[in-house]
């Protein structure tokens, strides 16, 4: 993981600074293998583990997916050591997404609409 740290710094601090390729490949392979392992776990959880309620299985599947996404973002996309400007940009996007979900929640919990939809 440290090599990724080094790379991201080199990308905006010192662009001509060479990096240790072997170390980088090791880091990326480790992350790749972790992602593959968690893909297996996701499938296993979906098909072979009965948590008593399918919603629990869905929640667990999404938590694993979120973990995998965070690995891709932090290591492969170098977000772990990125500039604040990028975090701010992404923050606005996530606020938009949260707003979309909030609108959906409002619609889903709307008692008037539900009285028509659900007898």
């Amino acid at each position, binding site marked *: 993981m440290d090599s990724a740290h080094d790379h991201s710094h080199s990308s905006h601090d010192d662009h001509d600074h060479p990096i240790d390729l072997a170390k980088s490949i090791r880091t990326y392979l480790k992350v790749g293998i972790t992602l593959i392992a968690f893909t297996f776990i996701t499938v296993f959880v979906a098909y072979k583990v009965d948590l008593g309620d399918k919603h629990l299985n869905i929640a667990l599947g999404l938590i694993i997916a979120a973990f995998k996404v965070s690995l891709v973002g932090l290591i492969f996309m170098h977000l772990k050591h990125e500039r604040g400007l990028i975090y701010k940009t992404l923050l606005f996007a996530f606020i938009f997404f949260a707003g*979309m979900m909030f609108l959906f929640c409002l619609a889903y919990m709307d008692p008037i609409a539900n009285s028509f939809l659900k007898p």
Partner: protein
Amino acid sequence: MQIPHEVTANPETGLYNAKVGIWLFLASEVMLFGGLFSSYVFLRLGADFPWPFHELKVLPGFINTMVLIASSVSVVTAWAALKARRYGWYQVNMVFTLLCAVAFMGIKTYEYYHKFVHYTVHFTDHSVISGHPVHESAEHHGDRIAFAAEAITLDLEKSNLEFLAGRRENKGGKEPYADPGDSPLKVTLPDTINAETKAVTPGETIDLTESWFKQKHRAFMDAKTELRKTVTDLELQKPRITPHDDAAAKAEKEEKIAAINDSIKAANDAFDAKGKEHNLTPTLKLTLAKGGDGKVIPVPFLAKERSVIKYGAAELNYRENTLLSGKLITDAIQFNVDIVDLRSTRDPEKSLVWKHLGSELKTRFLKYRDDKIAEFHEHRPKVANPEQDEDCRREAFRVEFADNDGKFMSEEEAHKFLHEPEHTISIPRSEKLFYSNFSPSLSPYYAIYFLMTGLHGLHVVGGAIVLAWFLFTGRKMYLRNPEHLANRVEVGGLFWHFVDLVWIFLFPLYYLM
């Protein structure tokens, strides 16, 4: 013009400009896919039908996940190789990434293809079967409406002879729907009536071809245009009666109007007479060839349901306004069943599907259902009535004969077994509520599935094109300024990781949950 800060960091942002650009773009992409993911949740929770669960084949999606993860590793390694000034390694990793993109799209195409060739029938009692309509052939009418035509009424204005594509030839025995090949359809035109002498000439027998129809259509439209022009000219000559007209002027105008009306009627009569003389009437009834006994030999037609407006026992009306008269052979859909889904019926054994299933499939269904209910009861003993539990019904009342972990038989054996002629069922269209392949029109689930995976696929293609551009044209830039190429690959790589990131959510949402 030199673009500033392509290699070095912009002092205002601390980043080179392309990186700021790609992150702004990715933020907009987060909003785009975020909107689609929230739509998915909205559709799923608001669905008034059993949301498909574990219905997509996991293996292709699983392999694609592996492929995208591998490509993410290789694209970031390609960037690291450039930073380490190892151009050869960069090339190897980029080629691998592109091969992954090709593999991903290949698997996706395979998945899409299978969705388009598999169909589902929703019965009026909400029981459902999925599988394949029997291929239309010399022996089978497949999912078409089979009609034996004795006469064809063409609309000279609107018909386009597309219905002829469904024409077949009854060769008797096992070939009631044989392909007629290139042999044209022989039809007899209506008798013509001479406009002056009123002498009747028997209609001639012609080959019903597109060129003949085009000629007839053009002649009819020319005659109709001429009539319209004449009538319009005459209408324009009609004087206007105003409140200021005195009685004499009004009478004179009315006389003129009556004369013009007579001229219009005469023009219309002439048009009709000419039409009867040259077979240029708005509709043209063509009779088919007669046999030695003087009776018409019916010609079978197989019509797609969507090309037909309405049909009955004696008539079939195409959307293009051609009317076939004769006898309906059958409107049943010949179908090979792969999956039976009786979740939405109160009593499976009284469902419409049940009466069509063969005894062997019924036995397999019941055994599978009972096994699954017992299994469910074992896992969740607290559920008092498993048959009413949604999760249990989903597992026990939807039986995929060809894919149950080899429970019944291997997938290959099952397909062979299910596609044997004796297992083909015939579904009357009156029992059908909805018939579709697994395309976006089937349900909101498939609509959002195709929208999201299709959009994601377009991103894969776009990303692969950009990365291929860097691979095949990057050498010059590398020799001039390797850091510049490294920055470009980093930006392309960021997009590629985003594509991977979206798939990491798409895979469990569609294939596992």
